[in-house]
């Protein structure tokens, strides 16, 4: 049951008869209030039930973080009465619902749609919280209200902010085509085609037999290796929960992983994604179905990443390494996206690494915190000097850990969030150019 504004006016109107008949004013007042109560009760009883509506929601919309989307709710009147009132399509705050309140005007047996705009502020599946229907009574004094659970969610994908670097990196990848012939023929390079010699080409690339058959000099071109395997391992353990800037390290790591996956799938490599901490939380492979297009691969990765959240447990690298080994026996490039936290790495990752490096080329990509660098640079006061000393100590420990990883043959890419995707892709392109995959 709800009351509406006119009831207040109606009650206050009772002051007029009270003033008009001062002799029996107390009786008048009581009767007036009683009359209003009777009217309100009658109005509530005459109100059609808000549950005489069937609600259904359109499918789960997918949207990148910080981009708007809409969700549509379909109302079907199943009762015999025309419903008027208000409607609220409630979402959790992080779904960023705007304009979630709608006017309800639903004739009996008809169907209406209401659309709510969502601009989510956090990644993952953001659920709807229920639909509240408020139906007004025929007298306009009162009404009935009910909240009905209508399942629904919006899947918020990682923003992939580094995709602005994608075209330049793909350009670099194209320039690799044909240049790999600088190296001696053999493993790691694949014959592509013959073309006319142009000035600047390596003379060692000239194919003399073809040149003899034709009237002009012909060189062989090489394309970079294809169908190599790239395995991205996302660490979703407690160290990934720490925030760098305004978002968790996990989100920055996802950004880097997405750019690398996009470039690698363009280069024709197979990309697999593993994410986990104590358990493997996500496992996506691109190679299984050969017909998948590159954008489909990227989409599957993004969809798999969307619901991942950092968990406040320690990573179990034995499990993760086992999952990597189970994926393939072929030599692969394994990119571990895990923060370079000395204690966690030394106790968890280091003991497991030799088994990985024995079969694969391993790269550790870590999200560095620019705040530490800022602390190190600031010597303005005594407190700042102590903080700078602490930052130096932190960096020294990270360097030591990186050196320990390097001794095992692992490359470490430790960059702040905005530079990490580019640095990681550059490292990948460098490996590819040298045929080291």
């Amino acid at each position, binding site marked *: 049951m*709800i*009351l*509406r*504004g006119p*009831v*207040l006016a109606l*009650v*206050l109107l*009772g*002051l007029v008869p*009270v*003033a008009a008949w*001062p002799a029996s004013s*107390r009786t*008048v*007042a*009581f009767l007036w*209030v009683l009359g*209003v109560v009777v009217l309100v009760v009658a109005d509530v009883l005459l109100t059609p039930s808000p549950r005489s509506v069937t609600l259904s929601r359109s499918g789960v919309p997918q949207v990148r973080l910080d981009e708007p989307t809409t969700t549509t709710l379909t109302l079907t009147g199943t009762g015999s009465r025309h419903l008027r009132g*208000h409607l*609220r399509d*409630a979402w*959790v*705050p992080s779904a960023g619902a705007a304009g979630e*309140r709608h006017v309800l005007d639903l004739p009996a047996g008809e169907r209406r749609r209401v659309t709510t705009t969502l601009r989510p502020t956090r990644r993952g599946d953001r659920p709807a*919280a*229920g*639909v*509240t229907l*408020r139906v007004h009574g025929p007298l306009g004094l009162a009404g009935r*209200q009910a909240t009905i659970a209508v399942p629904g969610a919006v899947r918020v994908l990682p923003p992939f902010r580094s995709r602005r670097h994608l075209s330049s990196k793909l350009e670099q990848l194209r320039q690799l085509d044909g240049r790999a012939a600088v190296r001696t023929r053999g493993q790691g390079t694949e014959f592509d085609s013959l073309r006319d010699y142009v000035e600047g080409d390596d003379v060692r690339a000239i194919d003399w037999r073809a040149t003899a058959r034709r009237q002009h000099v012909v060189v062989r071109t090489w394309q970079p290796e294809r169908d190599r395997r790239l395995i991205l391992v996302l660490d979703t353990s407690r160290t990934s*929960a*720490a*925030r*760098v800037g305004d978002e968790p*390290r996990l989100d920055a790591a996802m950004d880097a992983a997405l750019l690398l996956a996009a470039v690698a799938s363009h280069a024709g490599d197979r990309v697999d994604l593993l994410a986990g901490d104590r358990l493997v939380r996500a496992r996506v492979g691109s190679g299984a179905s050969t017909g998948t297009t590159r954008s489909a691969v990227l989409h599957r990765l993004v969809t798999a990443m969307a619901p991942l*959240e950092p968990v*406040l447990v320690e990573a179990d690298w034995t499990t993760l390494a086992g999952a990597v080994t189970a994926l393939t026996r072929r030599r692969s490039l394994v990119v571990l996206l895990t923060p370079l936290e000395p204690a966690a790495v030394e106790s968890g990752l280091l003991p497991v690494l030799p088994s990985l490096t024995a079969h694969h080329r391993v790269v550790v990509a870590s*999200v560095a*915190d620019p*705040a*530490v660098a800022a*602390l*190190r640079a600031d*010597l303005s*006061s*005594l*407190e700042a*000097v*102590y*903080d*700078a*000393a*602490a*930052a*130096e*100590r*932190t*960096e*020294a420990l990270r360097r030591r850990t990186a050196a320990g990883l390097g001794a095992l043959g692992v490359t470490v890419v430790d960059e702040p969030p905005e530079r990490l995707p580019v640095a990681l892709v550059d490292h990948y392109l460098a490996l590819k150019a040298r045929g080291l995959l």
Partner: protein
Amino acid sequence: MTRVRTLRRWAPWVLLALAAAALAAVLAGGGSGEPMGADNPGRDGGRALARVLAARGVDVQEVPGTAALPDRVGPGTTVLVTHTSYLGPESGEDLLRRVRDADRLVVLVPGAEQDPGAALGLDVTTTTPTGARLLGACPDPRVRDGDEVTVWDVQLDAADAPEEVTACFPPSPGFNAGGSRAGALLTVAADRDRPETVLVGFPSALSNDAVDEGAHAALGLRLLGGSDRLLWVVPQPGDAGTAAPQGLWDVLPPSMTPAVIVLAAAALVLALWRGRRLGPVVVEPLPAVVHAAQTTRSRGRLYREARDRRHALAALQAGARHRLAARTGLPPRADPDSLVRAVAAATGRPAPEVRRLLTDPTAADDAALVTTARELRSLEEGPSR
């Protein structure tokens, strides 16, 4: 979880109820707040006097209002009325009728705005006093020579009264010599309509606050302890008229009550109308916000709290050595001597100073630490800055 939520929901209300109960207990346990009430322990109360009188064998009974007095108060009784604010001519007459046979009627006059004369049918005027202290100076047997009152409230003047009046505690010695009858204590002799009536202009002197000064206690005991029984009347608002108001409804003007009912109903409607939300508040679990640099800041705070200048400076120097080694082309783990030589050669600074900056982690005080850290930074960044 549910239990915690229930607790959270009800705990504030339970606490509020407990606080209200405690407040009510404090208010109820403190006795009446009436000035000169027999059970009022405050500064302006009369409990001290009442207790002493009871200890002396006087039967002290508190009476709520003159209307609550017995119809006919018998002899052997003194009646005390603590003020006359609620006494009109009619109720004063009623009071006199009830106490006609009593030994004595003692009326306290706590302020010049009171008019005990009108209430009791006496021609008495009240004025605000000027003097500081008063001496007895009168033939009343209850007042002895040398009795002194240090606090008083009202000067009473019965110059034109036809009754036989004795005035004590005149405003100045010899004031009444010329036939005027003024003072802080007037005694009107008993006649057909009234018992002996004493008007007291110094109730403050009998209050808990000042009863132990001067001759106050003795005066109080002599005035009130003359009989076996003392009826201690604290006047009530209902004494003034016959239709005494019993509650809030009677005090309000009759035409206002229904309006208040309507307005209260309107306030209730307003609360119900505006208080109902369109659906429940939506809650969601939020992620923990932990900044990655938090451990570094905490380490810095530890250095600071411990005043660990040695470790702090050593960390700064190790970092500087690492970067300078890279810049001078030495391996990262080059020994300090070769690094000092290389840096001294590159910067042109004397080797001992470079050695001190890069390898000596001692700092005498905080200022030295800051200075050394900045020198180290300028060495690292080169002389151009």
